[in-house]
């Protein structure tokens, strides 16, 4: 059972890495800063691990560390999405821009 989980996880990892390479290769250098802030925000999905950890309340240590982890990840998600959107809003083409 554990072995099957491991193999499944490896498959997911390899496939996701390939998709990541192919998709991100196509991102224009123009948008490399928003790319970094967006992937950072997506990375904050680690919050789901922290939520389970803090919510299960298996030990005081786990709850404390889990709660701090939730704070760190949530601030990343919220801040990351806000700043990415603020940056992308600024990118205007000269065709759409009023003179």
């Amino acid at each position, binding site marked *: 059972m554990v072995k099957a*989980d*491991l193999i*499944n*996880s490896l498959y*997911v*990892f390899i496939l*996701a890495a390939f*998709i*990541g390479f192919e*998709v*991100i290769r*196509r991102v224009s*250098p*123009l*948008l*490399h*800063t928003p*790319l*970094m*802030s*967006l*992937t*950072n925000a*997506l*990375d*904050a*999905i*680690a*919050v*789901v*691990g*922290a*939520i389970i950890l*803090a*919510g299960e*309340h298996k030990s005081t240590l786990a709850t404390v560390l*889990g*709660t*701090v*982890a*939730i704070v*760190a*990840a*949530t*601030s*990343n*998600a*919220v*801040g*990351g*999405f*806000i*700043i990415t959107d*603020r*940056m992308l809003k*600024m*990118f*205007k*083409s*000269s065709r759409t821009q009023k003179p």
Partner: protein
Amino acid sequence: MIPGSEYVIEITYIVAAVLFILALKWLSSPVTARRGVWAGEAGMVLAVAGTLLYHGIVDYKWLAIGLVLGAIIGVPLGNVGMTAVPQRTALSHAFGALCVTLVGTAEFYLRAPNVPPFVMSVLSLEVILGGLTVTGSLMAAGKLQEILPQRPITYKGQNFVNLTMLAIAVAIAVRLVLHPEEMVLYPFMVGIALVFGVMMIVPIGGADMPTVISLLNSYAGLSAAAMGFVLNSKLLIVAGSLDGASGFILSVNMSKAMNRSFSNVLFGAFGQVQTSAAAAVEARPVHSATPEEAAAILSAANKVVIVPGYGMAVAQAQHKVRELYDVLTKKGVDVKFGIHPVAGRMPGHMNVLLAEADIPYDKLMDMDEANPDFPQTDVALVIGANDVTNPAARTDVGSPIYGMPILDVDKARTVMVIKRSMSPGFAGIDNPLYYLDNTLMLFGDAKAFVGSIVRELTGGGGHG
């Protein structure tokens, strides 16, 4: 528990993973990019909501506190000024890695001493990468925010000390894989990773920041993917590998743009720019010009390429540059921007600053687009960029930056360089560009100088 809720949770995770991939796909063009942010947000909200249904959760109090507090901290972090984006990014790498390291640590103490070897291996990878990213990113943020000295600190045997520390951390990890009951070793492993993160960034100077930030991005992603293996969470593996892949691609781009091998970057040898014989610079004559002369040349030009660098960001000159762009465009001059991949302090830094100043993105060219244009360019105007325009990278085999791809501004009919003084740039390398016959040095503060050129172009009718 509601029957079937575990499927609901898994389905929210699958949908979230798809949305994350779409988010990055839509980022390929500025036209669809904002849709990408919405997809990412939707995926995140969905996954968090799904997780809250998890039957094992017994207490929601701390979750609520954590989520609210995180949101309260996140809003100001999302609203920093655009010039502070590099340090904000570094800080968010630190936060992401902190979350991963804390969860890994809690998992270790919950499971020890019965940690299967595979779980212990990925858990060690998770906390070592996570730990060094936390302190490394905090150091990088500190240097970028100028709280810490930006000058690289190097000493003899630095690489040896750093690699030894990393080796010890890995050795402890191996020991823990074989003997997870020796729990007392765990804090040492994390502690060494934390110290290593600091030591890794100590020799890094400002010019290397784009590479370092990308590398830390990659580490943060990989540690999150490792956390996915520990928790057996496919969604986390997907998000972590997307982030890791993105950081990896950017690191490779940046190291190519600085002509460093990737292994050179991986082993933290960056930052050790050979202090070349910068002292041996003889006082060669340069041609300098006043704002009036610069304005006259610019308004007589048909095609102008502006090359911005970190100096433009420091001087906050981007809005004045926009005014210059406006007035020249109105006179019928074709104005574009040539942007080197490592200009500034993080990948894409210049593009964001120029977009903030309302310069349309189709006027921003990357190095490959800009270089064929320079021979047909009347004026190349360099604002606060130095090493990325240094022709020695093409011609002088002895130069420390030989082989680095540069913007060929010297091929333009006239080159104008706005610079505070003749002092060499960050790397201490002299720039032969400044002594060319077709180069005019415009000495002064970037913002003030561009401002005076704009005044000449708009106010003084007779000068044009």
